[in-house]
């Protein structure tokens, strides 16, 4: 039988997004949703722009002495160093490539956003960085999506949790303790309190910050990747990267995520172990860079 009063799904979705935004702004002391510093927005738009040039990226890097130092340090690290060391920002950008340079710029800005007191903020940052590196690594291993395009969605995959922590630190800590004590699944507890979970909130923020619709969709489904539609390949990789981050010691508590993503990728035990080892090495290098 046909529903005589069909509800337009896009209207329902729009209202739901509006409710999520209203809840987060209502809880926030500033009355605003979290936002990235200006340099990160510029780097995000350059990362997705076909017109990005070395000159434009160099200009952006040079707006911040700290960012320039980080880019030079990474370009001269074991992973990227060439025979002749990078001495200028331009040398460093050429060595790293435009996409990687933009990734570093965004990560440095994101680090500042998460630089708030407390163990939970620190573990969320380490987890975000580990998942970013693991996602990028898995794009290269699987080639399911463009190799090297996974760092930013990985970095932002749990931005909903960071928004909860920034807006409502008491409840974020209470939920973390309940999850660790086995009182319930994180998403269920978040929905009990907020009416939505961190993956839903994160997808909205990631889209606001400039990730494309497929990436935002993948973030929405990173704990339930087989339910994703357009963003399924990336959602599967994010889920697998989440598991790898926990396996190498950069989770955010004792409750582990599902293995849906790793199972769906079907990597051999050897490939998975090699991947985890490379992520661990890259994490050590990157975490020092953003310390």
């Amino acid at each position, binding site marked *: 039988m046909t529903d005589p009063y069909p509800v337009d799904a896009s209207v329902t979705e729009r209202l739901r997004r509006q409710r999520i935004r209203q809840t987060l702004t209502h809880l926030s002391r500033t009355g605003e949703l979290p936002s990235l510093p200006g340099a990160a927005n510029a780097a995000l738009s350059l990362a997705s722009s076909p017109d990005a040039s070395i000159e434009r990226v160099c200009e952006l890097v040079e707006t911040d002495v700290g960012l320039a130092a980080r880019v030079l340090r990474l370009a001269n690290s074991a992973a990227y160093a060439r025979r002749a060391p990078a001495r200028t920002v331009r040398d460093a950008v050429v060595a790293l490539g435009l996409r990687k340079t933009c990734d570093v710029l965004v990560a440095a800005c994101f680090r500042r956003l998460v630089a708030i007191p407390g163990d939970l903020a620190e573990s969320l940052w380490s987890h975000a960085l580990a998942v970013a590196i693991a996602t990028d690594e898995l794009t290269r291993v699987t080639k399911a999506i463009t190799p090297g395009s996974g760092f930013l969605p990985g970095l932002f995959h749990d931005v909903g949790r960071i928004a909860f922590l920034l807006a*409502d630190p008491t409840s974020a800590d209470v939920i973390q303790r309940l999850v660790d004590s086995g009182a319930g699944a994180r998403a269920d*507890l978040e929905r009990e309190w907020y009416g939505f979970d961190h993956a839903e909130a994160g997808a909205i923020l990631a889209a606001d910050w400039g990730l494309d619709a497929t990436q935002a969709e993948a973030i929405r489904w990173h704990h339930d990747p087989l339910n994703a539609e357009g963003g399924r390949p990336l959602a599967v990789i994010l889920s697998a990267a989440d598991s790898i981050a926990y396996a190498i010691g950069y989770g955010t508590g004792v409750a582990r995520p599902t293995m849906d993503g790793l199972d769906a990728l079907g990597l051999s035990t050897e490939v998975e172990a090699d991947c985890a080892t490379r992520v661990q090495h890259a994490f050590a290098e990157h975490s020092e860079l953003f310390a």
Partner: protein
Amino acid sequence: MRTVLTADRSTVVRAVVERHLERYGCRALEATNAEEALAGARDHQLDLMVVDAPVHAAAGRLSDPAYDAVPVILLTTDHPASEPDPDDPRIVATLRKPFDESSFDRAVGAILGEPSRNPAVPRAAQQGVVR
């Protein structure tokens, strides 16, 4: 020591309320339904109850003098059924879930006074469960 009962079906709501109550240095009890809330009101000298709207409505139907004597902060949602009855004399304030710390302090502080940043009694000694 003042005693506050939190009555809500949700584990996380009870835990968040109790975490905020730690700053007030009071004894926190919890209930998950109307029957447990009524038992808490009968068995303890309560200074305040923080009660989910449907639990409060169910407790009200059971009409118990011990429950009726305690001031209530009503926890509501955006669901129309959770709207408070304006003629209910027990309700001293409402808090819409999820609430922020300053809204909690405005509602609770009116009954319990200013929160203490350093509660004198360790958390484990303050809490109890009615059920």
